[in-house]
């Protein structure tokens, strides 16, 4: 049976007809919407390469069925830069050499965006590492990733303080 699905991906509304109930959100993004920034690593929720924001929360896109998410609001790596300007985390990843091959990077950045919104880790490197443990980097860029996140966190906090003072 075909199912019709409405999803908002990176501020674009899509109406999708699904003829297979087994399609995961990850496969929907990659195969149907051709948004291939979200990566398929393990496809079993272990590596974090497929991390997206689903209704504002970071989740593994591989472990959830598209059919269950009619009306969902999704943010992928393709939607985080605004008006041609990189997100602070994207810029910080470049600045801190927080990648080597780059395959895990979209998932790392989406996870870090979700983590900063959750506001549990603050500027504690150990809490950042713990909060990012669902994202694996086989190149071992962890030190750079942690530094990039702490840097972006500090920049965003400064930005907020300035805005509050203004």
């Amino acid at each position: 049976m075909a199912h019709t699905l409405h999803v908002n991906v990176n501020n674009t509304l899509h109406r999708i007809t699904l003829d297979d109930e087994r399609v995961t959100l990850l496969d929907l993004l990659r195969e149907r919407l051709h948004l291939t920034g979200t990566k398929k690593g393990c496809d079993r929720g272990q590596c974090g390469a497929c991390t997206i924001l689903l209704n504002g929360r970071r989740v593994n896109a591989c472990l959830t069925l598209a059919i269950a998410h009619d009306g969902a609001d999704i943010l992928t790596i393709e939607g985080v830069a605004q008006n041609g300007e990189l997100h602070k985390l994207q810029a910080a990843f470049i600045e801190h050499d927080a990648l080597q091959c780059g395959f895990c990077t979209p998932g790392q950045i989406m996870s870090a965006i979700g983590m900063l919104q959750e506001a549990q880790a603050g500027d504690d490197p150990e809490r950042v590492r713990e909060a990012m443990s669902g994202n694996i980097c086989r190149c071992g860029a962890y030190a750079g990733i942690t530094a990039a996140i702490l840097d972006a966190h500090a920049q965003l906090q400064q930005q907020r303080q300035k805005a509050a003072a203004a």
Partner: protein
Amino acid sequence: MNRFDYTRAASIDEAVAAAGAPGAIYLAGGTNLLDLMKGGIVRPNRLVDITRIPELTETKALPDGSFRIGALVRNADLAHDHEFARNYPAVAEALLAGASAQLRNAATAAGNIMQRTRCPYFYDAAGACNKRDPGAGCEARGGATRLHAILGWSEHCIATHPSDFCVPLVALGAIVEITGAQGRREIALEALYLPPGETPEHETVLAQGELITALRLPPHAEHFAAHSRYIKLRDRTSYAFAIVSAAAALRFEGGMVAEARVALGGVAAKPWRAHAAEKHLLGSQPTAEHFRQAAEAALQGAKPSGDNAYKIELSRRIIVRALMLAAAGTQPRTAALPASVFGVHSGAIHA
């Protein structure tokens, strides 16, 4: 993954009616179910999506002092609920010690309880497993068994229940609220799980179509708030299942233990409440010696199911450690590495 019917239920009654036939499974966070379906380990013919039933998403303090957790409350939301974490700190710590942040954002309270008791052989569709194929045999026996059960196992299955959340929940006497075609009932979480025995394919007492609608912590559970801990040993400090874990909760009167709760994780097909240890602690002083005696009592009857005798002594030590930390007092905030033995804890005394 096999094809299946997909039905979205708008109410509990609609869900129960849709899931009455064999082969139907409820879909909530789906983090364990999808993984099992991708491996062909579970092949439902129908998924009943319960995620749009609003009444399953609430947490509520009840007038009698109980606390109800709706079936769909996300693990992360519960752990980060300040009031909940203050009243049930060991439960919050256990939640944060489980899985990854992404999974905790998706996984639900009832889904955590219903995650499958498992072992690598259960996940290997090419091998024999009595859980997947009753009567086929157990390839784990005589296999790589470092992480398998040491309590309550049978010749037919030596898998362990992987949940962290459930360990302090059974220690605190959590209750499961259930709705089925025959109406509503409630049972102790500890009584939800069946020992593997000769039918390891039956993991819980739930009948086809019965739906867990909520968990409830009884009024008494928050009396342990000042002295509660969860400790988890694992192969890496984050995002790994427990080798063994322990929840310990104490209540003191005049410097003596007036009440004690102890449970183990990663040791059996169910979260394992150690009643004998609890009894042993009553009226005693909180010393390493008494805690060690309680730990000995907890592991009475433990036996290796393979190459895992080390887990018996490890369990004793983790009980002592959890009790020492609980006696020292609940931390004001969960450690950077939740439930880790490597964190720097004030009051930590090495067992």
